[in-house]
């Protein structure tokens, strides 16, 4: 993701105006982050500590991520639930108030237009976080659907909020840190739940979720408070006087999510990949699997009944890291897959990755080869996550 594509992106965007988050100046001048173009934004890819240290600090204590480039959308109205269920696989009828779910925005072919987190704020009010690189396309898609057929006459409003920043606070000490800064006790808050809280007399939305495999939160904060919030998080000290949290750039964000076996849109997921191929069937409830009623259901149903040719799989490779696009083959040289993401795992000190591998070669522990710079290296299909997830379960 940050390899050749990044250099191309740099060239591609060099004449365009890149957008900046409210913390741009803070990343660049105070934290000395290395800023690169990503999804139309100028974002920190790493800070002076470097990817490995940022990564390990997040696993050990807390990592802070500016994810304000992601889209925060509120979908409100009497018909909002039906509207969202029309183009996502989410089961919002059975989702409780204040609960959040990972879901997929689907196209008619049964491919994935984007992955998103949907929070049910009220029965007629939803908070949806979508990928930075997809947000323009997603909003247009939602608005097109809303303007078509019967949806025109329904009670639905789509409000895109660009004022609030979004900060991810991830790691085993994330709750303690937020408790201290917000002045609350979040231990009764389960993973994949969300609530509004007060921070310095302003409303912030705190969601217990993340993209690292660790316990953690994503906090939506008004622009007026974002710098204060960022500084308080970064400056916090523990009893020994050491820092509790470190800022983490896009580089370690990628290695963390990769170790956690999570998908990155544009790599593991795209408009031609079905949820079943992506091994995300668990995002579709029994009711929705049986009743459908979402775009692309015919393909999903067919894939559920007849199986799929290829599946998203984890792997480890001996030799150099296998990067996106590398060919996966059997020992006889027959191609059976391709790499979608790959990097050295800072926690395991092994080269890990995700790939699409043809069935049945995707069976765990299957020995295959991956071709890197024209040389084959041994690859083993592995279970994901590579590093066990530590999502919070309330006592």
């Amino acid at each position, binding site marked *: 993701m940050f390899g050749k594509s990044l250099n191309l992106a740099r060239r591609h965007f060099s004449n365009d105006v890149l957008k900046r988050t409210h913390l741009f100046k803070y990343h660049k001048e105070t934290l000395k982050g290395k800023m690169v173009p990503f999804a139309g934004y100028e974002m920190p890819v790493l800070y002076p500590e470097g990817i490995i240290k940022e990564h390990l600090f997040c696993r050990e204590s807390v990592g802070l991520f500016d994810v304000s480039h992601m889209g925060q959308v509120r979908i409100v109205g009497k018909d909002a639930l039906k509207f969202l269920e029309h183009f996502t696989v989410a089961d919002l009828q059975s989702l409780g108030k204040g609960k959040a779910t990972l879901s997929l925005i689907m196209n008619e072919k049964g491919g994935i237009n984007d992955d998103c987190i949907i929070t049910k704020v009220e029965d007629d009010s939803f908070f949806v976080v979508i990928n930075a690189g997809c947000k323009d396309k997603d909003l247009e898609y939602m608005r097109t659907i809303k303007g078509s057929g019967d949806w025109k006459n329904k009670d639905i409003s789509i409000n895109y909020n660009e004022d609030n920043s979004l900060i991810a606070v991830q790691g085993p000490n994330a709750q303690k840190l937020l408790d201290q800064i917000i002045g609350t006790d979040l231990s009764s808050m389960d993973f994949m739940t969300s609530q509004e809280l007060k921070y310095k007399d302003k409303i912030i939305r705190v969601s217990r979720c993340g993209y690292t495999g660790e316990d953690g939160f994503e906090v939506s904060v008004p622009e007026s408070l974002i710098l204060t919030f960022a500084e308080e998080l970064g400056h916090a000290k523990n009893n020994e006087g050491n820092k509790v949290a470190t800022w983490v750039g896009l*580089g370690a964000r990628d290695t963390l999510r990769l170790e956690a076996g999570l998908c990155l849109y544009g790599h593991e997921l795209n408009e031609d990949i079905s949820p079943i191929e992506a091994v995300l069937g668990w995002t579709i409830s029994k009711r929705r699997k049986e009743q459908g009623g979402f775009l692309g259901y015919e393909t999903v149903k067919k894939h559920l009944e007849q199986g799929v040719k290829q599946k998203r799989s984890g792997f480890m490779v001996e030799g*150099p*890291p296998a990067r996106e696009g590398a060919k996966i083959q059997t020992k006889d040289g027959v191609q059976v897959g391709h790499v979608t993401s790959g990097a*050295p795992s800072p926690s395991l000190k092994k080269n890990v990755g995700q790939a699409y591998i043809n069935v049945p070669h995707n069976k765990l522990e299957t020995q295959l080869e991956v071709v890197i710079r024209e040389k084959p290296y041994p690859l083993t299909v592995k279970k994901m996550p590579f590093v066990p997830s530590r999502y919070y379960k309330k006592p």
Partner: protein
Amino acid sequence: MQTGKIGITKYAQGELGDIVHVDIKSVGHQFKKGEGITAIESVKTAADVYAPVTGEVIAHNDSVKGEPALVNTDAETDGWLVQIKINDEKDLNDLMDAAAYEKFLEEHKH
């Protein structure tokens, strides 16, 4: 026989970040100026090191193969990658010296 050691600059290692693997063409490999002779893998990316002159690989830096992070800490000294035989010394005339390189970096800073 004119030989030389090839590495990457301190600036280049900074751009790549934590280096985790180096993949050097075998001893005896002959190459033309501009061809890739080593691949460097950092956590975030893979990059090729291009031959500054035409020549032949005569040795690898085994320390770097065992400990790739040496390229980060000592890029322009102990972190060299490959030793080569230079076919034609005239190729060297096209290269920048350290001072010219510093100036180049300064001019391209943004």
